[in-house]
């Protein structure tokens, strides 16, 4: 009886004080982005008091596993989920597990909000499925003071880059740091070398599974990579470190350079932060236009979302200049919204680099089928430890590609 009364009371309360719920499942588990999102939600609720937003936060790696169960279950719980643009998003769109979100633009167009260049990576079959929030660039990070000390200038070409490595090494500094306990950092190197040597179209075809891994053009990528491995320019024992641990070698001045995304600044100690700078990954073949890596983060709406209407309202807010500006400012990243200026000088430099590029890629594990990405990234590590085995490694990768893509 008591239970029944409580139930009745609860039902009445729901109807009287009904606020429509919007549930967001988020992977922003690091303190800084988590806080930024919470503050955005606060602003949203002040603007739209009829909605009550619930944010469920999950650790990054857990989120990747759980997302599939949320999307696949017949009854959905989340209305909005965080995710990555590119193949990672398309994979779900293809299965009909997420829905197009054109309504977000209400009479306007994609181009009124976001750069045209982002469109393809946020859509599937000409429909927008993904609302970008922020993005960042990858570059070769270094400490200004260390470069100054040895009179090093930012290298522009591959030869200059090797020269810088040599100078650092002579002075007892590990030229390039990298932590490959989680292998994606190695994929960064693969991507940028392939982009510099073979260009964007080739890279996209490769990540889409259309180019055999035994292709001669691809072998060239590993030949260049091998130069820095054979000369001992890379941090020894890099497989023992996570990317943050490898970054400390840079922060302590024991290592000279780190090819990394802008988020390296999130983990830098305050006294080092302003000493950090980056340069564009050196040009290898002047005939190939410069392309860069710029992963895009954002949101999508599951097909089983209980409150799709609310989800669209929330995403409309996320796409707005106000929300994008706040998020970018808080994290020093670039807003996807074209109306938002870069939040600081560092971001301005990043943006200029991207604007000067001929095109952008997401990232190996965002552009490639997840299974291929896993084998591929582990193969890169194997290559870094045994560069001599490259033909054998690529042969195995090719066998995997054939199995995974069925062609």
């Amino acid at each position, binding site marked *: 009886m008591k239970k029944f009364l409580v139930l009745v009371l609860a039902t009445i309360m729901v109807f009287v004080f009904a606020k429509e719920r919007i549930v967001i499942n988020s992977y922003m588990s690091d303190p800084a982005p988590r806080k930024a999102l919470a503050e955005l939600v606060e602003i949203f609720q002040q603007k739209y008091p009829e909605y009550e937003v619930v944010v469920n936060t999950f650790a990054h790696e857990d989120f990747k*596993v759980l997302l599939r169960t949320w999307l696949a279950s017949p009854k959905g719980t989340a209305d909005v989920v965080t995710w990555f643009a590119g193949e990672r998003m398309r994979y779900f769109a293809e299965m009909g597990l997420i829905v197009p979100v054109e309504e977000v633009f209400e009479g306007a167009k994609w181009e009124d909000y976001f750069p045209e260049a982002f469109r393809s990576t946020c859509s599937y079959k000409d429909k927008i499925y993904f609302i970008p929030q922020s993005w960042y660039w990858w570059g070769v990070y270094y400490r200004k003071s260390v470069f100054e000390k040895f009179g090093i200038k930012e290298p522009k070409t591959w030869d200059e880059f090797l020269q810088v490595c040599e100078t650092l090494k002579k002075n007892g500094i590990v030229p390039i740091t990298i932590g490959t306990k989680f292998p994606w950092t190695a994929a960064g190197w693969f991507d940028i070398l392939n982009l510099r040597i073979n260009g964007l179209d080739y890279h996209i075809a490769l990540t889409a599974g259309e180019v055999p891994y035994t292709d001669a053009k691809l072998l060239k990528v590993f030949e260049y990579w091998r130069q820095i491995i054979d000369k001992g320019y890379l941090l020894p024992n890099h497989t023992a470190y996570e990317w943050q641990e490898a970054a400390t070698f840079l922060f302590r001045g024991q290592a000279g350079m780190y090819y990394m995304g802008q988020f390296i600044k999130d983990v830098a100690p305050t006294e080092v932060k302003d000493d950090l700078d980056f340069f564009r990954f050196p040009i290898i073949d002047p005939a190939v236009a410069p392309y860069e890596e710029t992963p895009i983060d954002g949101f999508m709406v599951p097909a089983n979302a209980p409150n799709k209407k609310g989800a669209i309202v929330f995403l409309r807010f996320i796409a707005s200049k106000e929300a994008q500006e706040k998020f970018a400012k808080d994290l020093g990243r670039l807003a996807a919204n074209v109306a938002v200026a870069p939040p600081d000088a560092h971001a301005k430099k990043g943006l200029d680099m991207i604007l000067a590029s001929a095109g952008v890629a997401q990232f190996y594990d965002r552009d490639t089928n*997840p299974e291929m990405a*896993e084998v591929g990234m582990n193969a890169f590590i194997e290559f870094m430890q045994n560069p001599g085995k490259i033909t054998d490694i690529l042969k195995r990768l090719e066998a995997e590609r054939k199995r995974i893509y069925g062609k």
Partner: protein
Amino acid sequence: MKKKLAPYLFLAGPLALYFIWVIYPIFRTFVVSFTRWDGMTRPRFVGWENFIRLFNDRYFILSLLNNFKWMVGFVILSIPLGLFFAMLMDQKYPGHKVYKSLVYLPMALSFVVIGQIWSWVLEPSGGIVNTFLRWMGLESLAKPWLSDPRIVTYSLIWAALWRQVPYAMVLFLAGLQSVDREHVEAAIVDGANAFQRFWYVILPELRPAMVITITVNIIDSLRAFDIVFVMTRGGPYYSSSVMANYMYIQAFHNYRMGYGAAIAVIQFLITLGFILVYVLNVLKREERL
């Protein structure tokens, strides 16, 4: 009649849970292992394909071999060491309880914590082990413990022994309680020295404890997962991977549920084999009693 019903009523609850959470998933795993399934779309029946693939998968074979390394390491190291500590702790001397607690302490830590600690200890540049070796002038012995594919598995086993040895010790200590003191005293009267007393009297009486400890260690080595997951995630490039780890990666990272299930089935069958040997052994002994 009522009397007979009661135990079954009590059992019904736990049994129901057991079926839902243990038996049914095992059964489902067998079914899934014959399919190709990404965890979302409809599973497709593929017969033995996953199993055939597995035995052509060098990384699975490697994981399987690594499990055997774990098994050998656990049995040949944690059994004698556990027994040694148990014998040491079984005596009464000032402060013996403190020593017992100290040795026992790692048991209270989870493998995740132990893995984290040992990641720091074995860290190649500034870790305690290598720092110590360099300080001793043994630079050549300082190794990249966690990044050299040839030694990484042994480093992991070593870290796991940190917990496995006290575990074996506890089992042996319990076993020592049941050793008949009169037999030991009789041996003393007969003039047996310490080694003889140990070898001819205590060890044979420890047989039941020995069987349990070996079996438990074998089973533990087959389900090794946490330390690998924390310390290397099976890397570099799968070289320290074990079956459970490889299964996790295939199922939850690569979204190959069927393939992952096939690995689980093989792991299950191997473990089951050892458990059966153990159970039969126990049954045989009980018959004798």
